[in-house]
């Protein structure tokens, strides 16, 4: 199989470390929310207000913002915009790229200073980069996670749910 199509597998141990890192970032900056996404917009982990129901859509849109700004960078012959900041009346969003594959997003209100968010996000991205590098190098066989019986069950589910 083409190795480029290999799935990303996030093991339990790494996920715990990611969650701890996001939790610390939320607490230390008094932010409302922190999200870690892969560049396709899939949410790997999130911490903060447990009532948030719109995480999936938020992930898709934030990844869209980032992918779009990456294309703008190319047009300007800039290597990458590694951070973007969106300022609202009540809520602000700071987004940072981790390596070339992951996106860290912090949502915070006017009670938190952007300078603090920038400094602590930088610290968190360095920490997460190390964890995510281990995730990237996971060569655990897919079949250990998803056996052939999984694919058969999946096909049955697809046929059942996606019918005319």
């Amino acid at each position, binding site marked *: 199989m083409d190795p480029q199509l290999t*799935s*990303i597998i996030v093991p339990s141990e790494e996920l715990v470390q990611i969650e701890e890192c996001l939790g610390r970032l939320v607490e230390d900056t008094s932010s409302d929310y922190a999200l870690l996404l892969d560049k396709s917009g899939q949410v790997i982990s999130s911490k903060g207000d447990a009532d948030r129901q719109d995480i999936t859509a938020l992930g898709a849109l934030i990844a869209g913002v980032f992918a779009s700004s990456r294309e703008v960078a190319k047009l300007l012959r800039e290597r990458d915009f590694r951070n973007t900041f969106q300022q609202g009346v009540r809520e602000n969003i700071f987004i940072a790229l981790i390596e070339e594959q992951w996106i860290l997003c912090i949502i915070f209100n006017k009670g938190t200073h952007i300078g603090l968010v920038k400094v602590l996000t930088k610290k968190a991205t360095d920490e997460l980069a190390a964890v995510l590098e281990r995730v990237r190098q996971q060569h655990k066989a897919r079949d250990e996670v998803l056996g052939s019986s999984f694919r058969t069950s999946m096909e049955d589910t*697809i046929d059942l749910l*996606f019918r*005319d």
Partner: protein
Amino acid sequence: MALINVAAREIHCKIVYYGPGMCGKTTNLQYIHSQVPKEIKGDLLSIATETERTLFFDFLPLDLGKVRGFQTRFHLYTVPGQVLYERTRVAVLNGADGVVFVADSHKKKMQENVNSLRELAQNVTRQNKKFSEFPIVVQYNKRDLPEDVLVSVQTMDHYLGVTRMNWPRIEAVATTGAGVFETLRAISRAVISKL
């Protein structure tokens, strides 16, 4: 690429509907959204212009529930079809696990179909993926057009290289829903087989 979260026991896959402007990509998602049971679908999110042409993308998350202990989610996206938005299409295509190429069956749209498919091939290749191995399903939409403007399936196969590439090909009328779920089933199976 798909994301498998072992600890949370979740699998996420991204499917993108690609094709020339006004070929029916958004209509496919709207039909799916209107028909699937409400417990599996999220809100259909559209970033469109005032005239309802897609500006950035449409997004529909589908939660298939637990399969062998894994919560499985498919995220469906469309790209804006107009030529102007080429860079936006690159952005949306980022990390896709599979593509539905929606082709317009109108004879005046054949060149646009070919150009769009060629652009898709370039964009997939730029992401360091082999186009020949990338999961693709081709949908010939608008099969209800009057006969004098409708291109035959064989001619479309020829122009788009569908037979040569061995892609599943489905005839559809997205406005009535004909072929929409058949397409979704085909691409979902193709993506799962590559997980």
